[in-house]
């Protein structure tokens, strides 16, 4: 029989494919020459809507400490013990070579501080003190006299004879409070008291950032070891850092790839062995491996690297890729004797259609503004092409000569299911069933609610979050992700704009809606204001009699005024040079596009909506609210995802009109859509929210399950055999996607859940695809 022989073209195919495979392997080898091109940077996964380079630069600047710094609190009921443990920890960490700098005590450089204070007497004077000097010079002098007698003012850095007017003391006292942390003058440690314990603050700055693949894990290990050590000494450690989230995310991803990938692999191999009872049938896994290889190579080629999240979600491809060989393997129940090449020939049109529909479904994901999904789409589409090619070109050659004698029990199960369906249909007609299904859908959709939040991307364990909250509460450091970006043509105008913004923010601070903020105008005043101080100082001799009465020599005061007049006007760069400017340094972006720019960072924000109002009518002031923007993008994307879904369905219909006609094509596409609707309703009934990810999952399932409808409609080898083929395909796919549902990242588990539901409904609805009248 002609159909049982091997065509000449079929002899060529394996060779050609092997050449391609070797080429791709070589490319992969080249891509991995510097180690694994993997990335764990979460921000790469979310839409990069940043329109200009400056905003991006500002954002990086604000995030840098989050990704490189770790705040640790060492707590002990005894202050001295806390300091001792912190000292020990600091020394150990410094020696670990993981950190660039570990700081547990303040080594204040007093001479440098003094120098900066003296030099900045005009420029660094706070607005309040400046106003008093200009408007109430008598009161200004009176306060100075009082301060000279005050035994409790604390030590001033600059001795009186160098600063008779006490300007440096005022500058020192107007520095913004930095949280609840206080300097322990004995040890130099920074200590906060809370919960009956003294907490010593330790800051560590790592050599690399959180997106390094190895560093976060090593830092987390070190922290864990230190925690145990501190425990032994009765001390408690609290830590907060973006690094810990990264470490946790990596561990989690590794665990999940192992579970999802491993679980799916073992399950599918077992299924293959049980159903087909031949060791060589395990070769059906070759397309899966080839698919993974193609996916990874395409991803790295297009994006330069692959994200770990792509790997986690991509590992679900295993279940889809194995469907191609299953297509013709399952023909062994009806086609006896089964031979690989003829079986392939028989199923090739269906296989090709299946590849096309799945690719359409995956590539629809690529048009969403989510780089994460674009990566997954590319990975999956390339993977499917690889799997298809190996299933079509290579696998039949590998299975050549194998005679499949599959177990009978799967077919009996399928037959039993088919009979059950027939019995059901006898009592309840399809139309009534449809009405019931629609009722079920309506009820579920009624209860469905949506939820979109960037936090779904992060499966952070509660312990990490609690610790970070405790650190924020104890230290009072509560950095917010929002910040203001302020631009102006030159420095004086920039400071003026910062002043205007500052006045509004002060109101928020006074009403308790904002804990505090940091802006350059707190550090240095405008040149015009510095000139006002000079003028006011010139008038001061009329008011300084009380100082002369104390015995301060008039010549000393005269000399000081002369010295102050001679101080040069300070600009932002000069003000940032001294040690006092350390907290402000990151805020200065310097000259950009013909102007200058700076940031205003915020602390302890209750209501982000209030911030938008602050910047609304201020020229050059812009609120950068990445989280808020992202959440808005999420919500907007949900709508575009639904449109994409419809569009992809339209494309699939067009594709299917050729083989199945308009009616058939519509019917084949309607079933997955109905399945998607049922899944949505189930989410509602289960009380699960509809997220962007569940929607993406459904988008995908539509594409995959079109395949089932095609299989059922073609009915090659009879209804029961087709149902069995569908069941096997659905089972393998479910084995890989369903396992995603156990992921601890809400986004991933949501995706897995909706795909699982979609698959179940698609399988149940597939028999309604009708029967194709075969011309042959």
């Amino acid at each position, binding site marked *: 029989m002609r159909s049982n022989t091997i065509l000449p073209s079929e002899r060529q195919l394996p060779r050609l494919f092997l050449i391609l495979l070797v080429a791709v392997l070589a490319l992969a080898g080249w891509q991995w020459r510097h180690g694994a091109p993997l990335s764990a940077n979460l921000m790469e996964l979310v839409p990069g809507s940043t329109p200009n380079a400056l905003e991006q630069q500002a954002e990086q600047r604000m995030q840098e400490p989050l990704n490189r710094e770790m705040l640790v609190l060492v707590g002990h009921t005894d202050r001295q013990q806390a300091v001792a443990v912190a000292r020990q920890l600091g020394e150990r960490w410094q020696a670990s070579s993981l950190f660039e700098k570990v700081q547990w005590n303040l080594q204040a450089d007093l001479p440098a501080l003094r120098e900066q204070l003296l030099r900045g007497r005009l420029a660094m004077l706070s607005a309040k003190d400046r106003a008093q000097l200009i408007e109430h010079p008598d009161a200004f002098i009176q306060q100075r006299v009082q301060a000279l007698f005050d035994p*409790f*003012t604390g030590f001033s850095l600059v001795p*009186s004879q160098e600063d008779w007017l006490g300007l440096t003391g005022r500058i020192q006292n107007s520095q913004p*409070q930095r949280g609840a942390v206080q300097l322990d*003058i004995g040890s130099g440690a920074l200590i906060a008291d809370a919960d009956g314990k003294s907490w010593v603050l330790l800051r560590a700055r790592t050599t690399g950032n959180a997106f390094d693949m190895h560093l976060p894990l090593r830092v987390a290990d070190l922290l864990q070891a230190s925690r145990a050590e501190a425990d032994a000494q009765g001390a408690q450690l609290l830590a907060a850092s973006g690094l810990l989230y990264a470490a946790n995310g990596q561990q989690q991803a590794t665990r999940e790839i192992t579970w999802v990938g491993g679980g799916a692999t073992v399950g599918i191999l077992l299924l293959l062995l049980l159903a087909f009872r031949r060791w060589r049938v395990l070769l059906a896994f070759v397309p899966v491996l080839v698919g993974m290889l193609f996916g990874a190579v395409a991803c790295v080629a297009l994006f330069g690297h692959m994200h770990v999240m792509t790997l986690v979600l991509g590992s679900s491809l295993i279940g889809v890729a194995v469907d191609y060989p299953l297509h013709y393997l399952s023909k062994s129940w009806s086609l006896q004797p089964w031979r690989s090449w003829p079986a392939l020939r028989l199923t090739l049109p269906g296989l090709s259609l299946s590849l096309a529909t799945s690719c359409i479904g995956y590539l629809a994901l690529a048009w969403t503004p989510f780089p994460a999904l674009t990566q997954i789409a590319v990975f999956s589409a390339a993977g499917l092409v690889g799997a298809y090619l190996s299933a079509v070109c290579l696998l039949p050659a590998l299975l050549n000569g194998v005679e499949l004698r599959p177990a009978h029990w799967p077919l009996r199960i399928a037959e039993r299911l088919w009979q059950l369906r027939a019995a059901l249909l006898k009592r309840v007609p399809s139309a009534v069933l449809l009405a019931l299904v629609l009722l079920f859908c309506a009820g579920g959709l009624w209860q469905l609610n949506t939820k979109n939040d960037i936090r779904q991307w992060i499966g952070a364990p509660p312990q990490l979050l609690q610790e970070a909250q405790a650190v924020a509460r104890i230290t009072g450091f509560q950095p917010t992700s929002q910040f203001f970006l302020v631009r102006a043509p030159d420095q004086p105008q920039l400071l003026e704009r910062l002043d205007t913004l500052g006045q509004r923010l002060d109101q928020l601070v006074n009403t308790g809606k904002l804990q505090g903020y940091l802006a350059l105008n707190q550090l240095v005043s405008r040149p015009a204001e510095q000139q006002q101080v000079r003028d006011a100082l010139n008038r001061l001799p009329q008011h300084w009699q009380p100082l002369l009465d104390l015995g301060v020599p008039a010549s000393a005061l005269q000399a000081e005024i002369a010295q102050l007049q001679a101080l040069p006007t300070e600009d932002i760069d000069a003000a940032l040079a001294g040690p006092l400017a350390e907290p402000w340094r990151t805020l200065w972006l310097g000259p950009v596009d013909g102007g200058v720019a700076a940031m205003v960072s915020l602390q302890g924000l209750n209501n982000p909506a209030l911030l938008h109002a602050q910047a609304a009518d201020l020229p050059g002031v812009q609120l950068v609210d990445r989280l808020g923007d992202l959440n808005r993008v999420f919500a907007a994307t949900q709508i575009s995802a639904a449109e994409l879904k419809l569009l992809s369905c339209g494309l699939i219909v067009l594709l299917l009109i050729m083989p199945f006609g308009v009616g058939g094509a519509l019917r084949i596409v309607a079933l997955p859509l109905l399945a998607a609707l049922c899944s949505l309703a189930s989410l509602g009934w289960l009380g699960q929210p509809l997220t962007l990810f569940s929607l993406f999952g459904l988008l995908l399932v539509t594409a995959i399950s079109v395949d089932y409808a095609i299989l059922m409609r073609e009915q090659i080898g009879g209804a029961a055999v087709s149902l069995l083929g569908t069941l096997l395909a659905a089972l393998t796919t479910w084995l890989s996607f369903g396992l995603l549902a156990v992921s601890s990242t809400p986004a991933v588990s949501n995706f897995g859940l909706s795909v699982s539901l979609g698959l179940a409904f698609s399988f149940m609805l597939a028999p309604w695809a009708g029967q194709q009248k075969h011309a042959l």
Partner: protein
Amino acid sequence: MKLITFLGALLLSLQAQAFDLQQLSDQLAKPSVIHGSFTQEKHLRALPQPLVSKGTFVLAKDHGLLWLLKTPLQQDYRISAQGIARRDANGWQLLPNKSAGAEQNRLFLAVLQGDSSGLQRDFELQLQGEATQWKLTLIPRSLLLKQVFTRINIEGGALVQTIELLETQGDSTVLRMQDSTADQPLSDAEQHDFAQ
């Protein structure tokens, strides 16, 4: 060389004589309320004569210190566990807890109340003399503190009599406490002041 041997011998003999820090602490911690007046001299390096101010104080073991400046200007201060407060037209105002200043005030209370354990943490303590007339010298241990004080000298008998703070910059402050008495309890007004 001779001096060192002499000092060594002195220290040894002091130990033998057995008026030690613990006894001083106990002695100073005994009275629950001390009333007295003070003279404060601030010696600024560049001024020919010191800035002298006078007033009265109340040291209550369980509450803290009231420091009432009378001349040449009037100003009331209170140091307690909550921090340092200054009285203005609206009553007591807690001053912002400037870290270094707050720490200095903690020291001040520790000195007056003879809390040697609190002092020993940050200073090396040297005690000379006997219960009726002693001198305690505090030398800062930490680098940070050394940049502020060179030394603090405290002298007294039953109660603290003078405190001399020698700053690294060359300025110094001398507090003389006179007519201290441990006999009077807190007056209603004083209790009220501590309570707020």
